């Protein structure tokens, strides 16, 4: 029994040791909060990967045909830049939308090749390079960020600056793959509660019928505004996750339009790309090494 407790304590301590938190951060221009609007443009790729039936794929297809264009229009109408986390394969399915996103000044970042990270190291590397090449062809530069659980050492070798996956702290923080390895990467946390798919997508992540939480935009507006207000007061950070096949529906674009407009009524809101936030964190609150 004592050994088990010692082991559990060791596990928690080892996990702690992999994290370096930022206790407070001064955003550029004295801003009170940094807001990352992030788009996971996987359309039907995850549905395909999970071998879901035809209507599920069509549901995802909405994101590529319609939703991504509406999100780009929305960002443009508010003059804000977003980060589009894009699987490499999407560049073959929706090249026109991707070129429009790049032309609009949005950051094009990695979201895996076909929405999975292969276990085999060589194939993982191959997928990461394929995605980087596909995104570079569209955006004119290599991605510097990823929303994935790609191996950090690999990401760092390939020049990535940040991940955006997981929520171990409210402010951006650093994660090391292994306490002994020098592969520390910045993470820009996103939380499932600020993710459209949790509220607007049936059967998200395999959830059963009795576990559906599909709801209406007004409830989600209230929750997300409350999250924003709390972080605004705290001098913090908010990452809003949108999927084009979910948020691209007309009723939700209208909700996001109201949300962004309301955020903009307050002074000191920094709408930035993930890369801008990452570079600011790295420059002003760099990780300790060794």
């Amino acid at each position: 029994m004592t050994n088990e407790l010692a082991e559990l304590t060791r596990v928690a301590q080892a996990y702690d040791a992999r994290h370096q938190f930022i206790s407070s951060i001064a955003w550029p221009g004295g801003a009170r909060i940094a807001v990352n609007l992030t788009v996971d443009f996987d359309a039907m790729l995850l549905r395909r990967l999970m071998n879901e039936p035809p209507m599920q794929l069509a549901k995802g297809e909405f994101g590529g045909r319609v939703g991504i264009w509406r999100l780009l229009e929305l960002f443009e109408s508010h003059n804000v830049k977003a980060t589009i986390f894009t699987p490499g394969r999407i560049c073959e399915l929706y090249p026109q939308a991707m070129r429009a996103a790049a032309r609009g000044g949005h950051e094009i970042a990695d979201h895996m090749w076909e929405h999975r990270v292969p276990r085999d190291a060589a194939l993982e590397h191959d997928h990461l390079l394929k995605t980087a090449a596909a995104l570079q062809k569209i955006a004119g530069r290599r991605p510097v960020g990823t929303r994935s659980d790609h191996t950090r050492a690999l990401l760092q070798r390939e020049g990535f600056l940040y991940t955006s996956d997981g929520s171990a702290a409210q402010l951006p923080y650093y994660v090391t793959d292994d306490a002994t390895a020098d592969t520390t990467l910045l993470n820009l946390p996103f939380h499932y509660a600020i993710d459209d798919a949790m509220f607007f997508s049936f059967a998200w992540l395999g959830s059963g019928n009795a576990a559906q939480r599909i709801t209406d935009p007004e409830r989600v507006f209230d929750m997300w505004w409350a999250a924003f207000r709390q972080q605004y007061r705290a001098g913090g950070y908010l990452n809003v996750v949108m999927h084009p096949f979910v948020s691209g529906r007309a009723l939700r674009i209208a909700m996001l339009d109201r949300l962004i407009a309301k955020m903009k009524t307050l002074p000191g809101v920094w709408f930035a790309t993930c890369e801008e936030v990452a570079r600011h964190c790295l420059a002003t609150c760099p990780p300790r090494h060794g």
Partner: protein
Amino acid sequence: MPWKDGYTISDEIGLADRDLRWPDGQRCCVSITVDLSVAAGPAGITAADLASPAAEFARHDGLAQLLAVLRRHALHATFAVPAVMARILADQLRVLTNEGHEIAAEGLRHEDVGALSRQDERERLALTTQIVTEATGQRPAGWFSLPRQEDPFAGGTISPHTIDLLLEAGYEYFGNGLADDIPHYWVSDFAARRALLTLPYYYHFDDQFFLLFPRKGTGLENADMLFRNWKAEFDAQYRRGRLFHMTLHPQGIGWCNRVQMLDDFLGYMRSLPGLWNPTGAACARYWRETYPEQTHLRLEPSIWQDYPGSLS
């Protein structure tokens, strides 16, 4: 893989708001589907589904309440009718067609055809067409495959052959597509440009997912959320000049406060000018004339490539 088979069913970019026109300069299309299936799950309508108080309500009181509300607001709907329900409700179907509603087909017993052989599905489709035609005196123009409450997904189920078989059988449209929020072409063969016009459906505007979902007794009653979804979508689509679509089930929406809510919502819609309320067939015909697939289905050459270590 030659095209984007297994990934996409239509072209790369949907029609933008600015390119959308409705007849006579109307502002927004309002399309209503009423599902007359009482199937609980993928097996389709069973004896137990039919011999229940809820099914009895759906056939009589609930349907009457729903029709009264549609009548009050002078709105037309397309009724998706499984062949077995066309037999059971033959008298009611004649009332519906007399009042200008459309009867469309919804399978033999609204069963999941996903795993059937092409031949088996073809035979069921032909028999369904025959039975629905006998019941209404008119060949159905549209085919629906709406979701059931106990399906694992909320989009309806079809097989890889369904769209092609519907084209082969002369259907004019498929009634519940999720890839757009306006009519669009569902391509069954990219090389041959074989495509079936598809009307939009979305489960957030379908009453069954908010009214004691997933089943009575243990499900959740979220009628207020349904109302807010309808209103938010209608307002947004009205502003854009696009299409608002809703799906109703007599066994759900016909009851007390719910039918009042429907009445209130339809009254709100009706208070705004410029609504075009076609049946599915009328909408499909307008669409094919105005946006024919020869000019409006833009199948860009695919740049899809196969790689070792990737899904095809």
